[in-house]
């Protein structure tokens, strides 16, 4: 399952860090952040609960870049 979320972040490197953080979250098979369109697309692992996983993704993103937002 693949879903796309709108995000808000100020710097391009932070976007890269968010991508890395999202990728390393349990339940996420792959993630990609596009800084230019401010979108994060997340591919979930089979059977993962998207909503719960995204909570974790947001938490992990906040760790690497405090000033970011994912609109769930």
């Amino acid at each position, binding site marked *: 399952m693949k879903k796309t979320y709108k995000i808000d972040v100020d710097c*391009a*490197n932070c976007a890269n860090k968010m991508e890395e953080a999202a990728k390393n979250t349990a339940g996420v098979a792959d993630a990609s952040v596009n*800084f230019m369109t401010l979108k994060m697309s997340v591919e979930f692992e089979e059977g993962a609960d998207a909503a719960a996983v995204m909570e974790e993704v947001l938490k992990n993103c906040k760790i690497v870049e405090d000033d970011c937002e994912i609109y769930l």
Partner: protein
Amino acid sequence: MNKKQRKVLIRIIIAAVLMVVLLLLPLEEGSWLRFALFLIPYFVIGYDILKKAFKGIMNRQVFDENFLMAVATIGAMALGEYTEGVAVMLFYQIGELFQSYAVGKSRRNISALMDIRPDYANIMVDGKLQQVDPDEVAIGTEIIVQPGEKIPIDGIVIDGKSSLDTSALTGESVPRTAGVDSEVLSGCINMTGVLTIRTTKEFGESTASKILDLVENASSKKSQPENFISKFARVYTPVVCYLAVALALLPPIMLLIIGKDPLWSQWLYRALTFLVISCPCALVISIPLTFFAGIGGASKAGVLVKGSNYLELLSRTKVVVLDKTGTLTEGVFEVTEIHPVGISSDKLLEFAALAESFSNHPISKSVKDAYKKTALGLDIEQSSSERISDVKEISGHGVEAKVDGMQVDCGNIKLMQSLGIKVDEAPTSGTVIHVAVDKEYRGYILISDKLKSTSADAVAAMKLAGIRKIVMLTGDNKEVADSVAKELRLDDYYAELLPADKVTKVEELLEQISDKEQLLFVGDGINDAPVLSRADIGVAMGALGSDAAIEAADVVLMDDDPMKIAKSIGISKKCMRIVYENIYFAIGIKVACLILGAVGIANMWFAIFADVGVMVLAVLNAIRALRVK
């Protein structure tokens, strides 16, 4: 400028003014008062960075820019270099502000460029025109489009006549006329008359929404340079930091060992200069920005690129494989000759038209069209389905069917040969359909297709763009293919291919090229989805309104002009050139600064100027990709 940016700008101005004032005041060098006063602009400009750095430490994110800037400036302040401490913070913020402004602006520019999404639809309610959200318009609703308005939803014109500006979709400004029964696409602008349209799709499924969706989600597939840069950024910052630590410690220790003055503060200062250059911003921002601008510029020209990776692949294209029908030729077939044997020509046409009546192939359509124009065709068209049975399509050969109880076979010479029927000599300038009734030869129908007016120029332009080999694939016979290939000066062609053969041919061609070279296949998106996905880059042409083609292709040409192939390659090459310019330029300057900083030639001022300057130039260079000739 948004609120956040304005706030930063105000802080920059305040801090700059304060700093200038402080520099003019006759403050004693090294006094506590001077230190305390300089702390004011320092906190004004840097409080958020210090805060973020602190949070970063809490979250164990030591190598983020904020932390590095904080260490560099606090270090400078501690060394008594107050102006430099404040200035580094100041210029860092100016750089960040410029970056966020430039990115925001190009984001808006490019979105505006691609904004073909209509905001409203007009519907008649109780005799009055009402504007409604196009999302709420059901299929089959009658909508009214005034001159100057965008068509919001795909549909069919039921009343009115007008010319349409399709440039938002195709990049070409040749107007199209629309009258009753013409199919119209959302995103076109109605120019002259009022049109009443019955919608055939929902808003979300309409052309404009589909295209926008595609472009907005384009860059989720990243190119090699983008992946390189994110990896580089991850390694670069820590490496520079460790170098800084080494620079602060090793030389003084060496000096101590050989019994000289260790010059701690001088080496510490140089190490701090390193930290200032450690931010990979210029690179990290300019590469995706370039691709984004390139994709934006391409879509302005009517070329939709589905990801930055495809833009990169396009630039490395060396072999172009083209489908013939609909790509190099108009794909509009017309019956140009009827050669009956023992029956009237109208009757021959009738047999062929009825046998082919269930086929959507362009050739069948042209036979049916020709038949409709005959006296017989007008009479019996309606009852035709009752007269036909047992239709069987034989891929690559033709059709067999029972018409009025008689066995009708129509197709190419291969079909006739397989049935053991002798045929008359037919011209080779087009597609020939031989017709046999009850295994008796009844003649042939010649159908020809015209080359597109720009095909020859398009082939020349591709050669000029560095394409080594241009190959045509077609299901047509050898003679037709040969005459087209000669006229267009193609390097090679393969004729009489079944759809599955095309995939095999593309696979063969793929084996002949090296890994670095790319093979591009161009088709009209009908029947060639497997080939589109097998090629390195699949290009669907004239895809307006064809969802399947948009789905299957990597690059979509909005109209059917083959010149766009060379154009998209040109756009991709320009984009890649800018990408590499930025990579070499930014990394080059950074390395130069690091070296100059290590030997003490570049001070902190120099470092921050170079850092921000490189970023500004890289960003401006990136935006160039948006401009398409």
